[in-house]
């Protein structure tokens, strides 16, 4: 009986032209202005506005002249756009005895950032690689100790490190600060790399060993080319962390000549002589924040991919 039924339907489908269907068919229609949509997008808009407002005020103020600022309307767009505050912030603003603006701090920060970045990422990636792929006796204990390091508040270690740096003759110098940044960046970055590398299939590592590749060869030829996203994540974390650092800079640098940009910004903004130049302060702040901002914009996409990959597999 069943056979007959199947035969009949097949025949019908062959012969009959497209049928007119009554009732709902095809994709369900969506309304653009439903109540749900208005609430969702409305909330998003208000929150975004709330978040973006301070940035707007800063940009607008930094483009105004002092007389205009003194009139009071902080939300009003500049009547006359001037870039003078930016120039002044970069090359003329005074901090104590120096009057060559933020540029000095900028180059100090660059000189701190570049070596810290390279050394800390190099060490952390190799650490993570060794801890995930070449497990040795006690490697888990070693990793746990490293992790404890990540959770000790910085303040506890501030003074002991001053003494240690003084003893090795690095206190007050840029190299001393680089050393501190490398040490403090290591636990979190090691964790990051280890978890990412742990998600690489073990068989790949075995295959490379059968192919005669050693510790460094596997790292540089197999693992590193596969791990670009996590290197970008580490790069972003380190750039923002080191660039925005204030505490270490003010503690371990002894001379205003060598202060990083953040410390110098603080000194400009807090200088008590004369009139407070809000426009210069705003411009100086924006200039200081520019480096991490650029890094975010350039590598944001890779950053998200790296974080997501770590979250799913790690």
């Amino acid at each position, binding site marked *: 009986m069943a056979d007959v039924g199947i035969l009949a339907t097949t025949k019908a489908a062959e012969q009959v032209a497209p049928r007119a269907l009554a009732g709902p068919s095809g994709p369900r229609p969506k309304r653009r202005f439903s109540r749900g949509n208005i609430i969702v997008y409305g909330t998003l808009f208000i929150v975004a506005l709330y978040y973006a407002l301070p940035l707007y005020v800063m940009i607008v103020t930094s483009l105004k002249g002092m007389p205009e600022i003194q009139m009071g309307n902080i939300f009003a767009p500049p009547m006359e756009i001037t870039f003078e505050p930016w120039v002044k912030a970069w090359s003329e603003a005074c901090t104590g005895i120096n009057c060559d603006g933020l540029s000095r701090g900028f180059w100090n920060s660059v000189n701190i950032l570049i070596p810290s970045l390279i050394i800390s990422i190099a060490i952390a990636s190799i650490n993570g690689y060794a801890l995930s792929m070449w497990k040795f006796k006690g490697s888990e204990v070693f990793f746990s100790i490293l992790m404890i390091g990540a959770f000790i508040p910085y303040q506890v270690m501030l003074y002991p490190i001053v003494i240690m740096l003084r003893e090795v003759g690095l206190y007050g110098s840029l190299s001393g600060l680089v050393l501190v940044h490398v040490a403090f960046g290591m636990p979190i970055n090691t964790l990051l790399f280890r978890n990412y590398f742990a998600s690489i299939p073990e*068989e*790949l590592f*075995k*295959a490379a*060993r*059968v*192919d*005669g590749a050693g510790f460094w060869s596997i790292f540089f*030829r197999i693992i590193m080319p596969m791990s670009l996203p996590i290197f970008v994540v580490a790069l972003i974390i380190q750039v923002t962390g080191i660039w925005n650092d204030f505490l270490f800079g003010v503690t371990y640098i002894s001379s205003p000549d060598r202060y990083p940009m953040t410390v110098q910004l603080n000194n400009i903004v807090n200088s008590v002589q004369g009139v407070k130049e809000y426009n210069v302060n705003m411009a100086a702040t924006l200039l200081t924040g520019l480096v991490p901002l650029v890094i975010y914009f350039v590598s944001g996409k890779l950053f998200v991919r790296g974080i997501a990959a770590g979250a799913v597999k790690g």
Partner: protein
Amino acid sequence: MINSVEIKNLDLEFGAVKVLQDLNLDIHKGEFLVLLGSSGCGKSTLLNCIAGLLDVSDGQIWIEGKNVTWEAPSDRGIGMVFQSYALYPQMTVKGNLSFGLKNAKMPKAEIEKRVQRAADVLQIHPLLDRKPGALSGGQRQRVAIGRALVRDVDVFLFDEPLSNLDAKLRADLRVELKRLHQQLENTMIYVTHDQIEAMTLADRIAIMKGGSIMQLGSPDEIYNRPQNLYVADFIGSPSMNFIEGDFDGASFKSGDMNMEMVGYSYAGSTPDACKATIGIRPEHVITGELAAGAPQKFTTMVDLVEPMGSDTLVYATLDGKMFRIRMDGQAKVAPGQSLPIGIDPSRASLFDTKTERRL
């Protein structure tokens, strides 16, 4: 006969867990040996020990007459193919094939020659400049085999190489692997949990359980003369029917059933009376018109019928217990029907119930 791989008194322990125990295995030159077992039996571990990817706790491994127990994987003269292919994703197929040779500091011309030869054998010429991400599963596995091939080694190790492929592709690649073995005549050690792969590919099969080898023999021996209950139960699908009873020195009795063991060839001399288990493969049950002429005749009741096209699997009751019978695909059977069957004792297997060994 020269042995290609010799495993001598091998032990492997992870902490307190003994994964391999006092394992001895000689693999002949040019032999295709399959290590077969369910998951966790230690077959992959053994393969990793042979490859040198795991350090052994005790014992020795010899490859081509050389003690390689302490050698690095790349110095052992082996090539390995993994289940997940393990191709280097950022390199082209050509880069994958030549990576090991570059590490061995081989001259460029020789590398090129070997890559071309492997590509010829595996017919992967059009794929050489592609990256693994742009290949299908079967193509990837072929490249993985090629990576072992270019090393020009004596021993190939396969770790479940076909398990990630779909059924049809698996069957195709199985045939190709067999052809490759006939062509190259290398020693191949192949780990799988798939008994069809084991039966079709192997010269000899080693069935493993709990870190030791239960039986080592040709597929024919393993199938027809399993040495113990575990092997008898493991090999064959649907699996063997087992009936427990008593053996009195000449016939097997269980309940109302009495089977004279005429024509059965015992493992040693005819054993004494003991508790015994008889094993009969569903496909060795004689049905239809031939049943009347069989040496031993019984009647069963049909409970359930599974038609599979090529043949029909019948679940019947014999002496109050379930009994599987494989019949011709065209056979007409229905549940509730009584089905006369015949059994030939010469094709059955008799085991001592206590020791689980073949009688």
